[in-house]
């Protein structure tokens, strides 16, 4: 396949000189080298002259049809292993009636044309990629299809309505036909229709198919270029000494010993710390090790996990800010009250590819290669750091080895641009594993108090749920709505069970530690709280945890549907051998519905997960295998966090640094994950994150069923007394 053009092979590619007005919706189609270029037309000059038909090069469009019939789909989303390149290509190819064997994908440049319609900038997160692009990408394909038909019909002197497109060709009942490659040049000269018809889903032949990932062959061969693979002539490598104690500021540094290390070229202070710039990674690392730095260590040195936990739990005893208030929880007539407090720690993303970014400043602008999830927000910030007009900063989004939300931050890209400017050379900034893991951007630690009043037959008549945690939106500099961070209560606010009186509150807590989006965001902790608590209520009511939930889901048929499917597929009612038990959990999140049953045993205080059954209703299906992979991965990700995940602090210092003390699941611990996707005609929901939230509560509920011990604090392995 065509190599993914995520990194310019030619480092001399000039930043675009003319960025002019940057958007316009389907105003025109540009003819280039005989090909049809279609999409959100952006009047910019291509980065290099187009002289060769076979390498038609025009960014800022969603698809390109070459004169050889190749269809290139240009994807403005971050590919971090979730398979979105293929998913988007399926949307375009379906409506285009493309020959799938001729479909290629390419990573888009940074341009407002590629903004996600849901959140209004070019970025990948919140499981919004398929949701946001489901219709626009299909429409881009349909528009091109109509133009290709319009190119063919007049030459045959027939009505376009009598022609149809199939498998990369336009055909007429008379037997005449022409390939897209033959028609591309003519199609490019035609007006762009504004109302191209979308296909009836019953006619889909590419959407819904388990097609293989288009980028897999390159990745298997090791040919795909990730951010950390970027190499520029004369490129230096930089590590940054950053403060170990949260919130510390640089007081002074002595570079003498660092500069004695062979290969170390520069030692420069930057905003985040002290940059050591060398010929390669190892020299930079040795240089940084030798660097002597004094930090003020003033503000955060008192922080410890015990103190943070106590502060969060204290906050759950006081009224917070109401995010939901149905009825009146205080006046509900309860026969008994159940109350529980749950706690979760900070978590690191632990991406396999460490944070990195490569930057070079030139006389007429800047060029940056970043494995970033938010290029649409990065560019203006990086341009300001570089001191150039944003139009003169070219930002390449590279392939990335994991993201999980960590790459939505721009600490690493700001460092790269700052250092490249300071040393006037191409620079690749790399955070070592330890730099990244100790460098904050954590899933918030949180505590939650849930109190329910139970009425007849143990049914809940009231719920007060109060969660205390730091604000991700605040950390990102985004506004809070009515004083509420929606992420902090996401997954709790949606309490789906028939209860009558529901009040959900958020108690803000800030201590200087930067919290961040982490795969599955608010639901990563809130679904653990809610689904553990509903389980506690079921036992308080003397009911089966599955039946109890199901009876209370009269207002959410889709959630009830996945709950029933998970119970069914896991043989919920059939007894297990002695020493094993099942736990169940379900939630609505990211526009999808998911339920899981975990089968668990406990030996010498250590839980072992034997099987996870997952039922998913994510609306219409684009690629069932991609969905299964995401759910499987999300479950394993959730198990790692539930069993081991813990970023702890002592005297303001993060105690973990690598996979030896921040454990993730290993092969022998990973259970089979059976994924069952329910048929649905609803709009597609997200799938990248939904596998994670139900996993911890399903496992903890199974542990309770087996041992009678309720796990109210994660990670599980840190708990004592689990027999």
């Amino acid at each position, binding site marked *: 396949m065509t190599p993914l053009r995520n990194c310019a092979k030619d480092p001399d590619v000039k930043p675009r000189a003319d960025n002019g007005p940057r958007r316009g919706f389907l105003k025109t189609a540009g003819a280039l080298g005989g090909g049809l270029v279609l999409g959100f037309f952006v009047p910019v000059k291509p980065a290099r002259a187009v002289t060769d038909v076979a390498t038609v090069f025009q960014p800022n469009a969603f698809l390109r049809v070459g004169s050889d019939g190749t269809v290139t789909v240009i994807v403005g989303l971050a590919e971090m292993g979730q398979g979105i390149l293929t998913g988007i290509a399926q949307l375009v190819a379906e409506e285009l009636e493309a020959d799938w064997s001729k479909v290629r994908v390419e990573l888009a440049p940074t341009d407002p044309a590629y903004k996600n319609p849901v959140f209004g900038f070019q970025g990948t997160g919140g499981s919004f990629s398929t949701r946001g692009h489901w219709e626009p990408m299909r429409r881009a394909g349909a528009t091109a299809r109509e133009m290709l038909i319009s190119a063919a019909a007049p030459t045959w002197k027939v009505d376009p309505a009598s022609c149809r497109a199939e498998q990369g060709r336009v055909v007429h009942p008379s037997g005449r036909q022409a390939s897209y490659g033959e028609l591309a040049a003519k199609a490019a000269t035609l007006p762009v229709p504004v109302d191209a018809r979308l296909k009836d889903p019953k006619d889909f032949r590419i959407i819904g198919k388990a097609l293989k990932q288009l980028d897999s062959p390159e990745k298997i061969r090791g040919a795909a270029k990730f951010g950390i693979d970027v190499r520029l002539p004369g490129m230096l490598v930089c590590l940054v000494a950053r403060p170990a104690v949260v919130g510390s500021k640089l007081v002074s540094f002595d570079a003498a010993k660092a500069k004695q290390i062979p290969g170390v070229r520069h030692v420069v202070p930057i905003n985040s710390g002290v940059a050591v710039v060398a010929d390669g990674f190892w020299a930079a690392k040795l240089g940084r090790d030798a660097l002597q730095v004094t930090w003020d260590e003033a503000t955060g040195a008192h922080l410890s996990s015990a103190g943070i936990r106590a502060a969060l739990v204290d906050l759950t005893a006081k009224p917070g800010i109401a995010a939901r208030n149905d009825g009146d929880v205080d006046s509900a007539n309860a026969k008994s009250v159940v109350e529980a407090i749950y706690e979760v720690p900070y978590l690191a993303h632990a991406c396999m590819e460490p944070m990195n970014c490569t930057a070079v400043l030139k006389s007429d602008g800047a060029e940056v290669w970043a494995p970033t999830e938010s290029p649409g927000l990065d560019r203006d910030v990086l341009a300001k750091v570089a001191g150039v007009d944003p139009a003169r900063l070219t930002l390449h989004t590279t392939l990335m080895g994991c993201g999980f939300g960590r790459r939505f931050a721009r600490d690493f890209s700001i460092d790269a641009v700052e250092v490249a400017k300071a040393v006037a050379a191409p620079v690749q900034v790399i955070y070592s594993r330890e730099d990244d893991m100790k460098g904050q951007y954590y899933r918030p630690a949180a505590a939650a108090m849930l109190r329910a009043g139970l009425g007849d037959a143990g049914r809940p008549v009231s719920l007060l749920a109060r969660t205390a945690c730091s604000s991700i939106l605040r950390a990102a500099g985004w506004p809070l709505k009515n004083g509420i961070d929606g992420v902090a209560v996401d997954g709790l606010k949606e309490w789906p069970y028939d209860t009558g009186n529901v009040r959900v509150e958020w108690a803000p807590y800030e201590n200087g530690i930067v919290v961040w989006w982490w795969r599955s965001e608010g639901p990563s902790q809130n679904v653990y709280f809610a689904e553990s608590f509903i389980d506690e209520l079921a036992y308080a009511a003397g009911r089966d945890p599955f039946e109890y939930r199901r009876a209370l889901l009269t207002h959410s048929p889709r959630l009830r549907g996945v709950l029933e499917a998970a119970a069914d597929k896991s043989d919920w009612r059939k007894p297990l051998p002695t020493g094993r038990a099942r736990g169940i959990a379900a939630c609505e999140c990211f526009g999808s519905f998911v339920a899981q049953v975990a089968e668990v045993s406990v030996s010498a205080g250590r839980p072992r997960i034997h099987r996870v059954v997952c039922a998913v209703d994510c609306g219409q299906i684009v690629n069932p295998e991609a969905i299964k*992979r995401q759910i499987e*991965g999300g*479950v*394993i990700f959730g198990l790692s966090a539930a069993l081991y995940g813990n970023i702890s602090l002592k005297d303001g210092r993060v105690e973990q640094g690598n996979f030896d003390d921040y454990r993730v*699941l290993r*092969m*022998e611990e*990973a259970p*089979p994950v059976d994924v069952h996707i329910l048929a649905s005609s609803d709009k597609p929901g997200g799938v990248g994150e939904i596998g994670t939230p139900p996993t911890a509560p399903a496992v903890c509920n199974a542990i309770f069923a087996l041992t009678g011990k309720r796990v109210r604090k994660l990670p599980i392995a840190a708990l004592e007394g689990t027999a």
Partner: protein
Amino acid sequence: MTAAALLVKNRQPTDAEIDRAMSPVLCRCGAYGRIRAAIHDAAAQLRQGS
């Protein structure tokens, strides 16, 4: 490479043998089940080829 080293020594590894060999290899995608299946596939192909 770890899997290739295993298959050089063992053309018909069990799940447990694969798990033992692959235990030091961390996967953050959570693709362990698929990796195990791929090793079985590769082993079968090697057996047929030899």
